[in-house]
């Protein structure tokens, strides 16, 4: 059976400097892959290449369930959810307005209401508070809440643990378990030593754009 996502020969250069070199790995259905590496190891570049925010420089192959996967195609963009370094929130809008916008904008419905999702990420009571009044960790929680509003088979999460306290880290793990239980998969990055409390997961260590090691 084909893996959920298969990546082969992924290479990226910036100003002649190699950022990623010949990366090759796969992601199984209902699995979490954690890309670990220090700052500048190429984690964010990898995530942006996978979701199409950076252009392909050289031919590399990404396939999903054996079919070519191209995030530049609108059809394939409906298959994943990307959460980047920035939270993607409008600080002038309330928590509820931010989520309602995303729910209407994304079109894909998970069946959960914005209010329910806010409760799940521990922000009940903040629905009418402007996002500007939230702490950095609460803003991260609000950004994570968007994951629950849509049903996407693949989550691409860039540093989801950043700015979060222990409860927040547990929340991320809870979200990961939710995604796996619904048959989805996750590729996430971390520069720290956090390991998701979720099984099954694999850790790929990235160093200067090369895969240094893989651990189960």
């Amino acid at each position, binding site marked *: 059976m084909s893996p959920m996502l298969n990546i082969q020969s992924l290479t990226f250069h910036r100003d002649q400097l190699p950022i990623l070199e010949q990366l090759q790995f796969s992601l199984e259905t209902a699995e979490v892959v954690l890309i670990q590496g220090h700052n500048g190891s190429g984690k964010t570049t990898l995530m942006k290449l996978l979701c199409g*925010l950076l252009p392909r420089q050289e031919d590399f192959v990404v396939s999903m369930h054996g079919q070519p996967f191209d995030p530049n195609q609108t059809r394939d*963009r409906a298959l994943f959810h*990307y959460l980047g370094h920035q939270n993607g929130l409008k600080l002038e809008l309330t928590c509820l307005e931010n989520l309602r916008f995303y729910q209407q*904008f994304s079109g894909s419905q998970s069946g959960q209401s914005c209010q329910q999702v806010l409760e799940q990420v521990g922000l009940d009571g903040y629905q009418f508070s402007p996002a500007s009044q939230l702490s950095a960790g609460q803003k991260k929680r609000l950004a994570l809440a968007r994951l629950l509003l849509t049903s996407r088979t693949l989550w691409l999460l860039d540093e989801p643990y950043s700015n979060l306290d222990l409860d927040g880290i547990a929340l991320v793990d809870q979200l990961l378990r939710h995604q796996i239980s619904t048959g989805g998969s996750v590729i996430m990055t971390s520069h720290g030593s956090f390991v998701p409390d979720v099984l099954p997961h694999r850790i790929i260590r990235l160093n200067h754009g090369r895969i240094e090691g893989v651990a189960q």
Partner: protein
Amino acid sequence: MSSPLIAAMTALFNRDMRLGIRNRGELASPLLFLVLIASLFPLSIGRDPALLQQIAPGVIWVSALLASTLSLGQVFSRDYDDGTLEQLLLSPQPLAALVLAKVAAHWVTTGLLITLASPLLALGYQLPADIIPVVMISLLMGTPVLSFIGAIGVALTVGLGRGGMFLTLMVLPLTVPVLIFASSMIAAAMGGQPIEGHLLMLAAILVLSLTLAPFVIATALKIGMS
């Protein structure tokens, strides 16, 4: 158009309108800028009614152009900073259509307001009452083009950080045709000449912008983001 696309466009338009209303200071800035520039001319060249009438078409349009340029940062720069631009680029909906919704919101919060404020400027420059509708029509048809051209510039410079001066240098020359046809239309109306030719040229530029600019902006955004 499918309904998820319309829902996404509506959500984007409504959100940007709501943001515009929440940031009232920013909403008022282009209008205040417009009035300020237009009021500088009578102060510097005197209050001769004939002279003011003669320069009015050019002054109103240059003021509108500068006021519109001032607010261009609202289109994509802030979305780039807070990460919401990534949501646009990764949406399963066609980027050109989403861009159209954003430019429409920008126009309503700047160009339309400038158009609605223009009778005050026209009266200040002592233009005859029957010229005021011509001024408003020229702005109604020309300011959307300014929003489209400006959005192309912002999209190309969005990743540059301090692209303000570069943006102005890039955008202003592209707006010259609109400036010429729009101010000529007002001048022709004041001279009792037919305005249909100017009107049709403005309409042609507007239709061209409406149909081509969203695709150019979408491509420019992808280039700017990478």
